[in-house]
């Protein structure tokens, strides 16, 4: 019995999925049509609450828990955040720079100025960068994707 468990342990430890080129995380992707990030950013009301499939380069990953990642838009300098429930899906740090397909629900996040400043500070701490609270002048709202499943290519 212990030999079987040892075998299972070693098999899982070195199974290709740990080091795979393509990672499937969370629920399987069901949608086939990709919605452009720029389209979602341009028309947030149209997509709020809807399930979408997006695709793009991963430009940032939560350094503490892997609980969010930023996907670059098809339009220069734009991006969209994909947030998952802590532990349900963990985006690996190595995913930065790779392409991802993500399926999830587009949700609007409305923050008061104080909440937006707190979030900015939080992200700066996570990323080890600097944050200027004066850059937030009022309430902020933005659309992000509540990730349900992803394929990191």
């Amino acid at each position: 019995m212990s030999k079987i468990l040892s075998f299972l342990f070693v098999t899982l430890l070195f199974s290709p999925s740990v080091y795979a080129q393509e990672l499937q995380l969370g629920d399987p992707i069901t949608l086939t049509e990709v919605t452009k990030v720029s389209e979602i950013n341009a028309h947030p009301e149209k997509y709020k609450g809807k399930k979408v499939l997006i695709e793009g380069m991963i430009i940032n990953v939560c350094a503490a828990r892997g609980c969010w990642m930023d996907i670059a838009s098809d339009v220069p300098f734009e991006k969209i955040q994909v947030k998952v429930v802590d532990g349900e899906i963990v985006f690996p740090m190595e995913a930065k720079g790779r392409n991802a397909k993500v399926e999830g629900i587009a949700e609007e996040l409305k923050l008061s100025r104080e909440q937006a400043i707190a979030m900015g500070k939080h992200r700066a701490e996570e990323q080890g960068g600097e944050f200027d609270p004066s850059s937030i002048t009022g309430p902020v709202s933005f659309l992000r994707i509540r990730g349900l499943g992803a394929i990191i290519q």
Partner: protein
Amino acid sequence: MRWRKWNFILHRDIGYLCIGLTLIYAISGVAVNHTSHSFNPSYTIEKSAATVSKLEDGKQPDREYVNQVLAELGETGTFKNVAMLNPSTMRIFIEGNSIDVTLATGAVIQEKIARKPGLFEMNYLHLNKHKKSWTLIADIYAIALGLLAVTGLLMIRGKNKLRGILFTSAGIALPLLFLFAVL
């Protein structure tokens, strides 16, 4: 009594089976408990600053400039991708390294990541990142721990009875008292 013999055998053998996983979950548990903005339990993250040649005025960043930056940094890792974060900052993705370059000044911030050997794998199992088959194994392990507790409870007897009752009570009281104090 015959059942006591089987209880002892079960307790002993389940205990043997659980040693490996218990060590994995214990070590990973401590590491994961201390997750913070300054401590990632699975990765080593090193940030460093450097300066490279700035992008010439009027030029757009291209592959030639990316190669130049990498050469000046002595970076030989596998190139993954490049992205413009904003009009003035370019991020180059190398395997295990991301490099932010401020084009106008040549200022560079590098973030090198590496898996913590052993700990990465233990956290991978403990946090059940694999899901699928590991969920089943982890469930079996949880049941085994439950059996270990129950068979252990049935072993409280004889000259160690008082000690057993005291320690077991303390183990049960600790979480209850904590919850009573904080909730």
